[in-house]
């Protein structure tokens, strides 16, 4: 198991690249939470980001496993003055139908769709699109500064 590799980009982006292994998602949440806390995101926002990141990466892990691929997942944490963003890129084939995670055990709850709906409720401006070469997906979302927040600037 390889740990996520964190490296600073241009001072506003932190980039991670990690193998599509479910056991790494806890470490990814930890890293994103630490970056968000350092950037001044409040505790509620940090928890929202952790859930959103974990759900998004879980979908990527599931899709890649289903496709039999082990291409790394790339994750950018984007720090801007008025908002905090996350972009997740995976190399799962875009043309294939995504696997559902519905089973008798989970009460016919499709927790893949449930998870994405949860992300949409927790963060702002959720968007997913194919990568430029058509071989994968890009999912991006933001946590906007809430009205009335009395937080230090994110950068």
């Amino acid at each position: 198991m390889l740990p996520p590799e964190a490296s600073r980009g241009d001072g506003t982006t932190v980039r991670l690249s990690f193998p599509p292994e479910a056991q790494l998602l806890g470490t990814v949440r930890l890293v994103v939470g630490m970056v968000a806390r350092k950037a001044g995101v409040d505790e509620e926002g940090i928890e929202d980001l952790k859930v959103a990141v974990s759900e998004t990466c879980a979908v990527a892990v599931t899709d890649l496993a289903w496709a039999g691929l082990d291409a790394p997942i790339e994750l950018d944490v984007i720090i801007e003055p008025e908002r905090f963003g996350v972009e997740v890129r995976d190399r799962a084939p875009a043309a294939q139908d995504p696997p559902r995670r519905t089973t008798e055990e989970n009460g016919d709850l499709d927790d893949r769709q449930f998870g994405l709906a949860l992300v949409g409720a927790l963060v702002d401006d959720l968007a997913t699109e194919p990568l430029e070469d058509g071989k994968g997906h890009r999912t991006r979302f933001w946590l906007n500064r809430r009205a009335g927040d009395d937080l230090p600037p994110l950068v």
Partner: protein
Amino acid sequence: MDLDLNVRKEGDHAVLEVGGEIDVYTAPKLREKLIELVSEGSYHIVVNLEKVDFLDSTGLGVLVGGLKRVRNHEGTLQLVCTQEKILKIFRITGLTKVFPIHTSVADAVSAAE
């Protein structure tokens, strides 16, 4: 990252104490424990989430599955949780209308009797 699961009996109830993070990696362990409890005849289950640091949709799915299993035996599945970050997940998904959520194990046990 690991999930701690401990079961104790309180009268007719099995109290499942859960600690750690419930996500796509650890949720199968919780699913297996709930299946094991029901297969052993424990149809009234209290799941204590007070020491859970993280819960995602996979964990919610496992809890819904557990509820479905105990209801097949006219049983109950009660939750204990006072952590706002976890309660928020149940509220957003509308599952506060599905699960009885209590502030203590004692309240959960007495509510189910």
